[in-house]
């Protein structure tokens, strides 16, 4: 079973990866480009890597240098596969344009309520997001 969510594509592109989902805003200036690991104090993803993941979070936060940190993450091979925001912001948009990372927002239904961390997600052109149903046993993990 695959469920399709629809949003607005701000930076077009196709991508696939495991979902990471949080209701906390993310500061890309506090993500280490060399490892992809989040260093933002108190963030639920603190210590986790965003490399290759499809990130679901409400919006950006913190330093306006975040655009270049996204570019750096991309250059080090640790960029997220795609970014899905509730309402994205200019820091993330500019970074996504520079790094070529697909970026969507205003997705219905709200992915923060219906996508779980670890689920396989495909971002399609035009703002569609396909979410694979969790395999049996995944929920217990």
């Amino acid at each position, binding site marked *: 079973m695959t469920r399709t969510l629809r949003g*607005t594509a*701000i*930076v077009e592109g196709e991508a696939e990866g495991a979902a990471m989902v949080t209701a906390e*805003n993310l500061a890309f*200036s*506090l993500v280490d*480009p060399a490892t992809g690991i989040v*260093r*933002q*104090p108190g963030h639920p993803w603190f210590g986790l890597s965003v490399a290759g993941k499809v990130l679901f979070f409400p*919006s*950006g*936060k*913190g*330093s*306006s*240098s*975040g*655009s*270049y*940190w996204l*570019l*750096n993450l*991309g*250059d080090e091979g640790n960029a997220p596969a795609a970014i899905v925001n509730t*309402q*994205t*912001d*200019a*820091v*993330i*948009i*500019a*970074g*996504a*344009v*520079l790094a070529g990372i697909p*970026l969507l*927002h205003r997705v219905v239904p709200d992915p923060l309520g219906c996508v779980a961390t670890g689920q396989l997600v495909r971002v399609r052109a035009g703002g569609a997001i396909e979410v694979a149903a969790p395999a049996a046993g995944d929920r217990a993990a």
Partner: protein
Amino acid sequence: MSAALVLDAHQQAMLDGRHGWPQQLGMRMLAAVARAFDAAALLPVASVHLSLSGVSVGEPGLRLFEALRAQDGRFVVPTTLNVLSADRRSIGHAPAAHAKEQVQLRILEACERMGALGTYSCNPFLLGCNPAFGETVAWNESATAPYVNAVLGARTNREGATALASALTGYTAAYGMHVDIERRGSVLVEVDTPVQGSDAFAVLGGAVARAAAGRIPVIEGIVARPTLDEFTAFCAAFATISPLATFHMVGITPEAPTRAAALAGGAVDALSITGATIEAETARYTTAASERLDVVTVGCPHASLAQVREVADLLGSAGIHAGTTFLLQTNRMIAAQAAAEGLDRRLAAAGVDLTADTCVHISYRQPPPGAVLATNALKIAYLTASHDMEVRFGTLRQCVRAAIAGRWLA
């Protein structure tokens, strides 16, 4: 929903690449931002303040800036520059950081060759760079946005690399702080405790941002107009804790002659900042458990001449403890002023490292992991928690006393 973005012929030509790749890349960023915020148009900007620190821009950013320059990219509006990852006056003199400092040097040279002014400061207001009331600008460095919007009544969003796009094209997307109604306040904040001095205003900025929780605060209870130093301390702290780009102080900031003028209308919550709120806000940034102290940093935002003098006065005839590094951060103009009145020699003799152009958060010169850093800057205290360091957050007076003693004093 607003109408879709409409570009004029010149803007469309830039987006189509008919004026070269640098302006096309800039327009792609701006068009994406406009789409994301339902902006119907782009607005001409009067100035840009641009981030270019080597630590945040990095080598991929260096390649970007040099490619823009190589393909005849030009900054088409007056553009000032934010802090560097090294003191430009001494680049090349510290061999350990040599390679990285060359990255910084090449980034700033690319920016200057595209037409930027070498201010290298997070606090360009000290240099007289003050956008006029009602002016549309695109300013990078989140700490500057509340000052530009609230204190000056000019208009900027919190820009990322979009400031680079604005410098290359001369435009920004008409959304957020460029829209009248989005500048209005949506929560009342009554300050019920006396606030005076830059240190107190920094803590107030954090406390107000935290209490307002994403709503533009309309602040009452500030009895006297804050000084430039008090305002910049407040704004940097406010922007550290809040994602917002503005606030209002009734009877003080230009878009808040009255409470009613500052508010968007309708019923709003009223919150109160008390002495207890300020104490709690102060306490939350200290993570160090022992009295150990390795580094003291002041000058975030970059110190004014008055603040440089204050450090010298607080030191008196005392010197910094041999085991402690004291960084006093400012811009090159203030550093030159300090030198002109002999303060630089006095501070150097006392063991103070007076730096220009840079800042401990963004410098290539980082204290070692596990170091304990004391500061009177809420922004540095907050950000240092991401650097594997422990933090002591206190007043300038406490920081200087501790630096003399070599340990934090209760």
